């Protein structure tokens, strides 16, 4: 099913624990953070030092926006690079895993055999 999706749909529907899943979540964090930034939520972070951005200490909405911005900021600077790096490490592990190597080998040899049969030549020996 996943394999049939393309573009953003494929990215968004990638399994969480996959390199693409990690990249998708990183992209999502970047998108939400940029949205928060562009609508000016940074100004609401004065709540961190106990000052309400609107001057009204009972203004919980404003405080919540400040907390939201701070959370996405830290997700942006800490989470996104980790997810991107992890996606790379994950892909490298998958590429190196023994099962995949053996399967790739088998697939490669089968392909070469098929090619040899077509051309009437003996399959090339692996070094």
């Amino acid at each position, binding site marked *: 099913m996943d394999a049939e999706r393309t573009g953003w749909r494929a990215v968004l529907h*990638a399994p969480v*624990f996959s390199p693409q899943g990690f990249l998708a979540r990183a992209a999502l964090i970047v998108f939400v953070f940029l949205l928060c930034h562009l609508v000016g939520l*940074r100004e609401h972070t004065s709540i961190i030092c106990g000052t309400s951005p609107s001057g009204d200490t009972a203004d919980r909405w404003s405080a919540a926006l400040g907390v939201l911005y701070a959370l996405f900021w830290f997700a942006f600077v800490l989470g996104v690079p*980790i997810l991107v*790096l992890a996606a790379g490490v994950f892909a490298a592990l998958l590429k190196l895993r023994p099962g995949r190597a053996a399967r790739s080998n088998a697939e490669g040899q089968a392909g070469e055999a098929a090619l040899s049969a077509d051309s009437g030549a003996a399959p090339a020996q692996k070094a």
Partner: protein
Amino acid sequence: MRADLRELLLAANVPLWRRLLYGLLSLLVATAIWFPCVHVFFRPRVQDYFAPTGVAPQSRALAARHLEFWTRPELKAQEIAKMRGSNAEWDFMGRTFLVLALANMSLREPERKEQYLQIVDQIIDETVRLETKEGMYFFLMDYARSGRYLGQPPRSLFLDGEIALMLGARRLVQERADYRPQLAARVKVMVEYMGKGPAGCAESYPDECWMFDHSVALAAMRIADVLDGSDHSAFAAKWLQAARAKLTDKKTGLLISSCTYHGEHCDGPEGSTIFMVAHCLQLVDEDFARDQYERAKKELRCEILGFGYAREWPVSWKGAQDIDSGPIIPIVGASAGASGLAFVGASSFHDETYLAELLTTLHLGAFPVQRGGTLKFCASNQVGDAVLLYATVLGPLWQKVREKEQHGR
């Protein structure tokens, strides 16, 4: 090739247990790589904030914003309303730290002195006018009204000390005749109230005496001495001796933050107090001030992966979050109030390592906004930014006190 890559990115045909294992392992490795590197991306150049002479570019940008709202009433009203909504003290302290910063900047940049002193005078005159017209409670937290001051008639050392310091700082830069009697009157009343307190302490709030305010008062007295030829050195030495004996936390050797009128300990050592105390006591007893700074640093400084901050309390002291500490970040115990004033301590004692760590944290967690030549930190407020500005330019004023004293001898 493309299908292979797609298969790899989706981890297709990989059993769930293997995906979980590889995924967690990858996150672990990525965290181990990224966390130690983060500080590199947030560490500004210390010299952008702290210059031995002149004014560093970021200090100028910070100051520009303050000058802007002291020349544009609608901006000032908006900023002050935000702070007074949380704490009326911050309105007052924001004025003090800005005056001190501008006084230092006047000495650093004599060619801009007139511009800075115009704002300084505006702040002092308005502050004194408000105190006179609205009464001392205008700049105090509401609970000041709910108790009875034991020293009568009621006065707050918090107000007298900081107004005296503002007046003294202004006169050190350039004499203003009408400020002379005002400073003398403030010093006289501070000496009187500290002298008549059973523990040698004057109240800032009913039955509350604060170390912060006493150290500010002592610094103001010292400035008055070099300006007007008075001599409060014996008074200050005696007070400090008593404080070292009776107002010190035994476990840390740090001065406590507050006591009752009769000298019973209330709050122990606090980061939001002790760094400013050490800075002010530089004018009274340099060696003791340095000792307090070193102890405060040992007890309160924290550093995680290149990010520095200050705790509000030493590990040995359990305190509750309050208006001075600001919100405390759980687990790490970082306090906005203590970390802000740690800049003042570190700058006073030329602690560049700590300053660099604190600046790195500031750039990560205080949300700087640079716009049109001005700089502000969104996670801060006017008083927080004024404290930071003061930390970046302090030095010349205290140096001038020392020089004047040497010439006086």
